[in-house]
Structures are given as C-alpha cells and as structure tokens.
C-alpha cells in the first residue's frame, strides 16, 4: 500500500499537500499499487473532500481533536498505528513533514529520500529519485536498495493534476500518546501568501536603500498575489523580518516567478532562489551577476522602473 500524508494547517489543506496527493496518485498508477491518504485532526467542513478532485479514492481520517496541533511524537505514533504494510509513504517536505518523516523513517524502518522532485522509479533492488543538493548548486540522484521507502516531496516541484474521483473517507481514532510537545500559541504573519507556497515572489535587496521604500514592493506583490521576500543584508539590517530572507541561510524557494529588485545576485542568494522556474531581475547595475542567472532583465533604477511597472499592471487590470 502507498500512503500519502495530508498536512493539517489549522483545519485547511495547503497547496503542498495537494501536490503530495497528486504525486502519490501518479506514483500509485506507475507502481500499480493501491493508495490511501492519511489526515490527522479536525478539518474544516468539506475540506478533505476537495482531494477527490486530484484522484484520491481512499482516505483515513484520524479525527481526535488532539491532532489539531502538530506534534512530531504524536503524529509519528498515529501514522505508525494507521499504516498497514506500507511500501511508500509520501509527505510534503514542509515544516511538519521535515519533522515527521525522519521519525517515521526510524520507527517503521523505511529509508527516507527527502526533498525529491521526480517520480520515484524502481531501480535495481529498490528505488531511485532526484533531489536538489548543495543548496541548488547540484542535483543528486539518490538510490535506496529498500523495497519500502518514505519520500518527502519538494514544494512547487510537482504540478497537481486535476482528476475527478469518488473519495471514500474512513474515520478512526488513535489516542494521542503524549503532551510533551505542547503548542501554546500561534502567530500568522498578517494574512499574506506564505513564502514557500507562493506562485510569485517579489523580493527586494539593498538597492532599495531603506525599509521606508518597501511600499512599492508590497504594492507590486499585492497586485500579483505574490509573497514578499528580501536578501540577507536587508534582513540583517533589520529592514525586513528574518522570515522573509531568501538565500542559502534563509528560506529556499522555488516559485513559478521570482522577481528580484535591487538584488545583485551573490552566489549565496542564488542558492536560495535558483530553483525558481522563471527569474526576472530589475537592477540599475548592468554588470550585476544576477543578469547572468535570470530569464528576463530590466536595467534601470528600481525607483523608476517599479512604479512604472505598477502603473502598467494597473492599466492591464483595468484599475487605472
């Protein structure tokens, strides 16, 4: 049996889980093995049914209230109790998946292939797949001789395929094992698009000269439904919060479109963003290294180009 774990983000299913479900459906067809989804904790009314649009037919829902908060211990116990003879377990490589997958790997004695972006392929005695290594500077083909394997799927690497199915949800209860990892508070970053899930990211660098100039970055992001990000010096200066820092020591992202404004494109920055499918660079220095590592470039002063771009988008949208 192949299993796919659906992350519970305060009762909602996020994009990363839909990608994982769609990936698991494709894998189930390829390996000719049945697939079951696993969801833990309370979800919003009708939320889990949405997975039927992506070809999922069977789902086990562990309904205990206790699983509304992620706990690596409790989730590991619950998943280990629910699975029966698992061959592959698929998880999104998100914040929870990165804590859960390695625990499950030990508990179930299934090797872990993490952050993979290709469909698992039978190879010799086991499986192989590809993943990013060296912070986007390399692609690693990994192999495990095991017949049983856990994989975490890199965000934005698998395009969900719509496929209508009739979804049968089985509910069950598994008592939560401990309260050793107790969530006592939560803070959402002002209702914006989460950086790691965003289709489009608008990012600003030192070229913007100061935090007071971020208004146009936010306006552009809002027009594009994009998340905002920044380079390391900007976060280090305290112009923007650390959770917006993308780069080798910040967050690694792979959006469809990355727009870099006033960022020179140092190798450490590229390491965090070069997995983006398309990169657009706006910089007044025509020799900025980023222009050698992008798809589209505008050589010009951000303080002239960005307001012009905002106006042009508004015209396009019929807002101006």
């Amino acid at each position: 049996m192949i299993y796919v774990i659906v992350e519970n983000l305060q009762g909602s299913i996020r994009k990363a889980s839909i990608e994982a479900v769609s990936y698991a459906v494709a894998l189930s067809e390829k390996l000719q093995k049945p697939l079951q989804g696993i969801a833990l904790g309370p979800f919003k009314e009708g939320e889990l049914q949405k997975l039927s649009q992506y070809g999922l037919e069977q789902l086990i829902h562990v309904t205990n209230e206790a699983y509304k908060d992620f706990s690596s211990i409790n989730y590991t116990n619950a998943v280990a109790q629910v699975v029966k003879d698992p061959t592959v377990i698929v998880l999104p490589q998100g914040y929870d998946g990165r804590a859960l997958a390695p625990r499950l790997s030990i508990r179930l004695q299934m090797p872990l292939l993490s952050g993979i972006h290709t469909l698992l392929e039978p190879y010799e005695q086991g499986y192989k797949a590809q993943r990013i290594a060296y912070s986007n500077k390399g692609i690693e083909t990994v192999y495990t001789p095991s017949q049983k394997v856990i994989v975490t799927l890199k965000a934005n690497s698998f395009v969900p395929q719509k496929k209508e199915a009739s979804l049968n949800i089985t509910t069950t209860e598994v008592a939560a094992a401990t309260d050793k990892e107790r969530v006592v508070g939560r803070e959402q970053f002002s209702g914006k698009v989460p950086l790691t899930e965003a289709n489009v990211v608008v990012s600003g660098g030192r070229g913007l000269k100061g935090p007071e100039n971020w208004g146009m970055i936010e306006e552009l992001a809002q027009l594009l439904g994009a998340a905002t990000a920044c380079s390391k010096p900007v976060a280090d200066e305290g112009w923007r919060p650390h959770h917006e820092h993308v780069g080798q020591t910040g967050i690694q992202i792979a959006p469809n479109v990355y727009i870099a404004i006033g960022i020179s494109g140092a190798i450490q920055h590229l390491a965090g963003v070069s997995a983006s499918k398309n990169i657009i660079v706006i910089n007044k220095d025509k020799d900025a290294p980023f222009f050698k590592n992008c798809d589209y470039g505008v050589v010009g002063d951000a303080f002239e180009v960005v307001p012009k771009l905002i106006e042009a988008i508004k015209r396009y949208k019929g807002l101006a």
Partner: protein
Amino acid sequence: MKVLVAISHVPDTTTRITFTEDKKALNKQGVTFIINPYDEFSLSYAVGLKEQNKAKEVIVLCVGPKEVESTLKKALAIGADKAVRIDTEPKDAFIVAANIAAYAKEQNFDLLLFGKESIDFNGSQVPGMVAELLQLPFVSFATKMEIENGKAKVTREISGGSEILEVELPLVLSAQKGLAKERIPNMRGIMMARRKPVEVIAPTETQPKVETLQLDYPKGRTQCKFIDPENIDELVQVLVNLGALN
C-alpha cells in the same frame, strides 16, 4: 545543563561547487569548509547559555573523517568546551543519526541541538532521526527558545507564521535563523581552542540506507532577455505569459 551541538562540515557558502569525474562526490580540492550555518545558530545559542550560567558543559560533535577536525576546532574557538569526532564517513543521514544517538545515550544531555538542515545535502533528516532513536521530543525550525525550570518555551517557524511550544527537557531541537546571532571567534577563543580536547570515538553504525548514484549540475539559465525600461508593457506581457498576472 549539559548541551550537545551536532555540526556538519560543509563547503563555504561562496564556494562554486564542482563534482568528481565519476559524478559521485564533491570535488574537495580548493574548497574551504565551514560549520554548517544553521548548526552555527545552535552553537551560538549554546555558548550563550554558558555565559548565562545555564549550561555547564557544551560538547560539539561531528561525524566524519580526520579532516572535519578543522571545523570542530572552529566550534571550540567559538566557545564549546569539548569536541567529539565519531570516526566514520557520513555516507547518509542514517549513519550520522545512529552514531550521534549511540553517543548521546551514554551522556545524559539536557539539550541536543542541530541545524534545520545542512547546506550540502539539505535533507533535514538527522535531528528527527536522533529524536526518534532516543525517544525524545523534537522541535524543528526553532527561531527562539527560553529555558526555565527544566522546561523550554520554543518558537518554531510554520507555513506563513510561527507557533510557540512548551516542551520538557531533554529536548532535540533544529535551529532556523533567529535562534541566536552568529559569533565570531576572538583571539582568546582561538588560543584556548588549542588546549581543548578532541575526543575520537569509533562508530557504531557504518552501513548506509541511501546512496548517491550521481551528482549533476542544475540546468543553467538560457540567456537573459533584456527588456527596455521605456517599454514596460513588454514586462507586463511577460508576467501574463508566465501566469503571474491574470
């Protein structure tokens, strides 16, 4: 408290990565190695605990061959009390985790600190595996921690926000940026590091579960298409074509 900081020996962030001819390994020639930056947040945090008299001993550990001792020495210069090297090739995350867990089992650590991932294999596997092997609580992507009366209050990054957890010690934690500011070793630290011990111990696990078949370079970007800032509507059209604007 007794604190373990497990570190990885990784290529410097500015390194141009090249692979060996057989495409199986990193070409180490001319590469400067550093403490994995995320592990360094943990190390700095642990050294801070010592300064506040909350930690008695900070032990820094690395699984790897002799060459990783240069990186362990840097960690000693930053302020760890003692270094331990487990003498085996870190062929996969399981080997690293199994050896760390076997060592930690004998030591009664109150805190076992890691980075959220290493910048070479970016796997995020080792800390969770160690937590499970030792049956300990685990908080990943920690950006803040306060310890009072044997309990930790930890802030963890989540999708689009953060959450705060209360966790009893002993605890396994993986650091995200924010946990502590990096520390630069001073002259005194470097001098003192020379006298601090590096204990070498034999591995308990040497069989990997996952292997690298091949390493390739990512596809480079085809040439940048330049758009005249005077013709900004062309950029709008690009955004439309890429599905960024509708």
